[in-house]
């Protein structure tokens, strides 16, 4: 569904990765693993169409996003959702945070009408808002200010915010690296729920146990290339690439 083909990115003079190809289909979870600083975030931003590749192409159902015009690229971009390592919430209530994605997809007229209803106090939260808050277990916190949430709740809210507008692809950048086991479990359950809804999920993680738990396929990003990509079981149990084997066994330390 969403595919990067032969993409390259660099940071200043230095190449982050070269000629890299990776893709995700509907209803599958792809884990991108690799050491810190290897370019997982850059790859996710490239897939989210927020970073133009210096070389190669990013295609959504065969349409080259960077050859499309601005409005078509916006509508392709709107089929993705992204969650960052840091929660990056807006200074507003929990409900308004979750609604953001829905709001920007509405016409200005409808948005204005919604704002007026909100001021008058007669506005009801859309079903999708309640539903995605339910997925991450935050239904009781709808009216609270996002700033009053704990770190784990804030990250769960970030997830709900990206899920609310029902994207085709979810890109998660180390979504649980700062979380305790309980909050990590909630996010992992939410990833499974997203897969059940036929959403393609790409998770960047350095936690190999997590990749093993949640992913259908694994891509190993090492030394500016995808060293290996395949079904989770075979990559972990029987890696074909020597560096992958060393990375998984912990021998390869960056």
């Amino acid at each position: 569904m969403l595919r990067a083909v032969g993409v390259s990115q660099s940071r200043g003079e230095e190449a982050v990765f070269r000629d890299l190809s990776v893709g995700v289909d509907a209803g599958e979870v792809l884990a991108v693993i690799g050491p810190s600083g290897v370019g997982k975030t850059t790859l996710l931003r490239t897939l989210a169409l927020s970073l133009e590749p210096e070389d190669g192409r990013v295609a959504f159902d065969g349409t080259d996003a960077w050859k499309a015009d601005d409005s078509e690229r916006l509508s392709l971009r709107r089929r993705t959702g992204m969650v960052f390592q840091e929660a990056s919430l807006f200074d507003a209530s929990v409900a308004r945070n979750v609604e953001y994605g829905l709001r920007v997809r509405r016409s200005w007229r409808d948005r204005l009408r919604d704002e007026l209803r909100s001021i008058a106090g007669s506005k009801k939260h859309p079903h999708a808002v309640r539903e995605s808050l339910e997925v991450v277990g935050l239904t009781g916190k709808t009216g609270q200010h996002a700033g009053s949430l704990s770190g784990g709740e804030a990250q769960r809210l970030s997830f709900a915010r990206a899920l609310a507008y029902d994207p085709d692809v979810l890109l998660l950048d180390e979504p649980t690296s700062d979380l305790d086991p309980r909050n990590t479990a909630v996010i992992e359950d939410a990833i499974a729920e997203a897969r059940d809804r036929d959403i393609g999920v790409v998770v960047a993680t350095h936690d190999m146990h997590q990749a093993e738990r949640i992913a259908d396929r694994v891509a190993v990003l090492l030394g500016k290339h995808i060293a290996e990509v395949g079904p989770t079981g075979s990559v972990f149990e029987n890696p074909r690439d020597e560096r992958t084997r060393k990375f998984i066994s912990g021998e390869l330390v960056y």
Partner: protein
Amino acid sequence: MERRRIRGLTVSFEAIPQALAGVLDLPFPEGYVSSIVYVSLYVSLTAVALSTLFSVPVAVAMGFSEFPGKRFVKSVINAGMGFPSVVVGLVVLFAVSNQGPLGPLELVFTTEAMIISQFVLATPPITAISLAAISGVRENVRDAARVLGGTRLDVALVVLKEARYGIATAILAGFGRAISEVGSVLIVGGNITSADGVSKTRTLTTAIQLEARQGQYGTAMALGAVLVALVLAVNAIVVRFGDQGVRR
């Protein structure tokens, strides 16, 4: 509740000079103080409103773009915050004088000329402080606004909302500079009252300096009290709105 309080403050503006007039036996012509308050507020609020409409979009545009010479433009704006108001007054006076580019509009010694000079004075602080507030919005919040499907306009609206307290501070700083300023309004406005003592271009500040120079210290003090009360009231209203924003 809030309305009542504002009304209460308005009443007290009038009450201060009246009460002091009784105690100090001040020679206030009828409508003198209220006309001065009106001119002060009209000039300052109009200049600040126009400057806000100009400065905030400029700050947003600068905060969202990189261009050669951006640091230079920023340092010019920052330097503008300390620009001497009498020099601004002089330049505006030349601009609106008969030989100046705005000569045909006949603006010398009018409130419009005063608005122009206060606009020039209020714009650097409003732009600079707004820009600082906008630049201070965390990069990852902008990113989130974009990757969740926002257009450039949506991202700009999110950033404006995140920076709202800083922008309110910027507007207050601009208002503070405008309402408390003497030099330029004296030069371009001329500190004029009509024959019956009603202010034409006399503001609280220019009236205070005139009364003090004439030895009317009681009147000057009373007008000073009104000026301080006005500044406090406007700040209180803005802070109150800000608090409501936090609660929502």
